[in-house]
């Protein structure tokens, strides 16, 4: 029994699968970005080389800073991302889950951001502190919209908070994205994922050209590899979560349905990459105004529509 859970956590929907697949999707991101800019782009194994190289570099701890938080923050973030991807993966591939896993997933996603804020502010670097402050503001702005988005499938499924029950509901009654509230919530959800993953319109915390990777500026070697790996793993479970919540997951009944499931995932990833490549970075006040004035009310309308049954 315990070996089965360890298998889930470490091998199939967990660590090995998600990290390898995440690095491949990260390569797709870099390659598509390069093609959009008329460049050639990196080779297929580039992200594997990068992570492997970071494992052999020196770790530099900042003098007069709390080392413990600095070292433990990337590990906490990695663990929370690993557990989230295992939960989403088991629901997606094996139709298994624990009770109330959606609430658990929302909490774990916040823990990733909190660990990032703690790790960045422990160094005492000015750019790092700016990045931590921006990450906190971004978390405050996108969290409400994201929770409202997640509420829509919960209401549709008859106030059930398990991924499995939402999937079961969609198998009987059709996909949630087919309803008016579903499509609104799905669009807001993609924008929220963009902010959660700190991709370009909302890459305010780690703006490379402005505050030089902000939150990650003092990290080097294996600790940086943990952050990079967590980010690659988010490429896998964030779109999968949207597929489960709104698009009915995947069914292994026939080859056609498996291909359809993969295409749903790829479509969301490509939409996110194209949003990333066609938008400039917004300022932090613009991001807060966008989420609180436009995205959250839109998600609230979707919730009201869902309660009314549309």
């Amino acid at each position: 029994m315990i070996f089965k859970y360890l298998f889930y956590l470490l091998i199939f929907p967990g660590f090995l699968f998600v990290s390898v697949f995440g690095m491949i999707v990260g390569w797709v991101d870099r390659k598509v970005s390069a093609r959009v800019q008329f460049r050639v782009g990196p080779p297929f194994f580039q992200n594997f080389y990068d992570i492997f190289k970071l494992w052999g570099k020196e770790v530099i701890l900042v003098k007069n800073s709390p080392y413990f938080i600095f070292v433990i923050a990337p590990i906490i973030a990695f663990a929370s991302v690993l557990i989230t991807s295992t939960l989403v993966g088991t629901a997606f591939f094996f139709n298994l889950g624990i009770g109330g896993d959606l609430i658990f997933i929302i909490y774990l996603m916040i823990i990733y951001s909190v660990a990032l804020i703690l790790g960045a502010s422990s160094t005492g670097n000015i750019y790092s502190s700016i990045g931590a402050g921006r990450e906190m503001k971004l978390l405050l702005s996108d969290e409400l919209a994201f929770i409202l988005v997640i509420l829509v499938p919960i209401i549709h499924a008859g106030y059930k908070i398990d991924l499995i029950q939402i999937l079961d509901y969609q198998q009987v009654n059709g996909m949630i994205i087919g309803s008016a509230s579903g499509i609104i919530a799905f669009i807001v959800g993609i924008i929220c994922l963009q902010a959660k993953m700190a991709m370009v319109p909302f890459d305010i915390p780690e703006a490379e050209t402005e505050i030089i990777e902000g939150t990650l500026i003092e990290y080097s070697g294996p600790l940086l590899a943990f952050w990079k790996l967590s980010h690659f793993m988010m490429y896998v479970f964030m779109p999968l979560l949207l597929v489960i919540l709104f698009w009915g997951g995947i069914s292994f009944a026939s080859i056609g349905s498996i291909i359809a499931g993969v295409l749903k995932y790829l479509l969301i990833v490509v939409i996110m990459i194209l949003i990333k490549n066609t938008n400039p970075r917004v300022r932090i006040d613009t991001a807060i105004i966008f989420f609180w004035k436009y995205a959250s009310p839109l998600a609230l309308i979707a919730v009201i529509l869902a309660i009314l049954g549309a």
Partner: protein
Amino acid sequence: MSLYNKIIKKSIWVFHASASPCNNCDIEILDLITPGYDIERFGIKLVGSVRHADVLLVTGIVSHKVAPRIKQLYEQAPKPVFVVGIGTCTIGGATFKQSYNRAGAPLDKIIPVNAFIPGCPPKPEAMIDGIVKLLGTLK
């Protein structure tokens, strides 16, 4: 050749340190990441923080004010790290040879340097060639 050296050749993150240059070499370095040359296809990436760097690209005559700072920058980089001096300025001072503010020495008197790429400024092709030759010396 060890496995680690084999991998690090394919993933070089470059930090651009300007030690009082005339900005000419810096503009040529920025040319490297444009679509015309696209060094990302070799896995080379410009990073903003010296903590992430594998190679320091140093440009310019090293002035008295910058010399201690470039030494500090080298100490802050996680090892193994390589240093490449870009442009004739890092070797002999080029046009600014007689300048009162030059620290009076080529770059390798201040920090250990793995390769020099001469030129005023060197062409992007010459820089790619220099970095590839530097990586060829890795055993």
